[in-house]
């Protein structure tokens, strides 16, 4: 067995592997096209205020107010990737007085950027959950949302029979958001 023949056999053994191995055309630039479009739902705000909280030492309080920090959408992740937000609110009133709930969005300078008003009629004996119109934040309105740092709640009671510490019923608010993201 000469070296020559042995070499030949090596060539025969290896060359076919080189030739049968091919590859399809690949395009790695496609990575740049990656765009995730997840849709998330989350709670936004809720409360359940009993009728007697609208009184103070037997005196009716016509206006109640509170504010909460709410700077989630100012975070870079959302300012970069949030393209649309739908806000759904539901109220249920079992107090015999009408209410107006104003949701106020504040920026860092305490300017009101946006007011969302939810009207709820007085309770007349039949429980009634009101689904309010979906508020859609897109474009300029979305930009305002992305500047929000605080959310304020103003509850204004309409006229009617006076409430006292023994008044029945409560005012409920429930709200959730659907956030549309596009992450590149």
């Amino acid at each position, binding site marked *: 067995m000469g070296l020559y023949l042995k070499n030949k056999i090596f060539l025969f053994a290896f060359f076919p592997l080189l030739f049968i191995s091919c590859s*399809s055309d690949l395009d790695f630039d*496609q990575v740049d*096209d990656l765009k*995730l479009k997840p*849709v998330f739902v*989350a709670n936004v705000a809720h409360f359940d205020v009993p009728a007697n909280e609208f009184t103070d030492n037997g005196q009716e309080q016509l206006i109640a107010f*509170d504010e909460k920090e709410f*700077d989630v959408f100012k975070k870079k992740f959302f300012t970069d990737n949030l393209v649309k937000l739908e806000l759904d609110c539901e109220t249920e009133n079992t107090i015999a007085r009408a209410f107006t709930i104003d949701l106020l969005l504040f920026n860092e300078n305490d300017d009101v950027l946006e007011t969302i008003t939810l009207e709820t009629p007085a309770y007349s004996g039949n429980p009634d959950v009101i689904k309010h119109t979906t508020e859609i934040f897109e474009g300029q309105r979305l930009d305002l949302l992305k500047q929000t740092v605080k*959310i304020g709640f103003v509850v204004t009671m309409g006229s009617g029979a006076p409430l006292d510490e023994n008044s029945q019923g409560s005012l409920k608010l429930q709200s*959730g958001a659907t956030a549309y993201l596009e992450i590149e």
Partner: protein
Amino acid sequence: MKKVLCILTVLFQLASFSQNKEVLYNFTSIPQSSLVNPGADVSYKFYFGIPALSGVSANIGSKSFSAYDLFANNGVDFNDKVRRIVNRSSNNDKTQINQQLELFSGGFRVGGEESKSYVSFGVYQEFDFLMYFPKDIGVLALDGNRDYIGKLFNLRDVNLRAEVLSVFHIGFHKKVNEKLVLGGRAKIYSSGANATSTKNSGYIYTGKDAGTANVYNQIISSDLELKTSGIASFTKDEYEGSIAGDIAHNTFFNGSLGLGFDAGITYYFKENLQFTASVVDVGFIKQSKDIETLTYKGYYEYEGVNPIFSDTNEPENVFDDFEKAIPRDTLYNKYTTWRPVKFYSSMQYSFGEYRSDADCNCKGKVGRRYLNSVGGQLFLMTMPRAPFTAFTVFYKRSILEKLDIKATYTFDSFSKKNIGLGVAGTIGKFNIYALVDNVLEYKDVTKANSLAFQFGLNFVFQDSED
């Protein structure tokens, strides 16, 4: 990113899957076969490997997708491809990469010419990567939670480990008698970089009460932990240097140290009926250099903001609550990692006696040689979840006195039709071998789910050639 992908594809072209070296195992005309069984029936007067070329191997395996599935230039939208892969994969699908490069190796017989005791030694570098497909996280990132009310997104799906290390080893094997070969190998590991995140749990959940439109029950329960060694300093802003260069330096000169061993046996029931078994990389590394452990542990139930009208209160921030409930902690504890243990075993039957047409070799007794061998092999490897198992049937043949081929057919979780081919030959004292795995996939390597390639060059000196 693109560079990384290119490197991965090149590895694809060169490589195969897990660390199963089914073609090399018990292919005793290759000295490196004693790295997968220190008790392999290998004999030589002495040998040395050509530095950096004596053992080059790479394996890539990916159960759920191939390079083609993701990057084919076929007009399909990339996002659709990603979605298709996520949808059809399972959280038990693994992506594995293993690469080894022998820097130097050698061996010699100890004792006189009649002795059958051998010492072998060397240094090799190894890169190991294993990741389970994070299916739930993928679904959450692609779709969000809106269409998955009531589903628990499992954080246990995050499961990966990666390591770059060098291994200094010295082995000894002895042919105790005509029937039995025993061997062992001691190893010192030096790990340049390690990342381990294999014991995660928790979930992300969004539920909804029946009848309510907008109230969700949202819970994040998190027990996430990522341990790193040799990596933390690269993530700091003040780091200025070459990461690849520093990892290479640490791997050989400033790594976290560990110890381990291999053991093996070859036993001949009859001259032509052989049994072998080996256990490789029983060992640990004490991760101690530049260590940093990140944890996110806690429970957070998100209800949205809840105004309280009855008294004045400080406005609180729900986002701060989240960070308080599931804080990011950094710990600096040393930790121990166990090497993936490999277990091999084989049964081999040989037939067809070899008749030398060379001149009579009258130097003492020459054992009978066979032209053909057939048999089966079993491979097991420890993994963070269930062990990896592969079963191989093989056929080995001596074409010429010093040219052997081996063909294998392997079943494992990556492939049911993995055909491997190996050639080992010696020209003079020059020993060359090349082993490929998943030959069928070479039709189009970009579509392969797993590929392996291994080659090496040695100089082997035997008595009869003196």
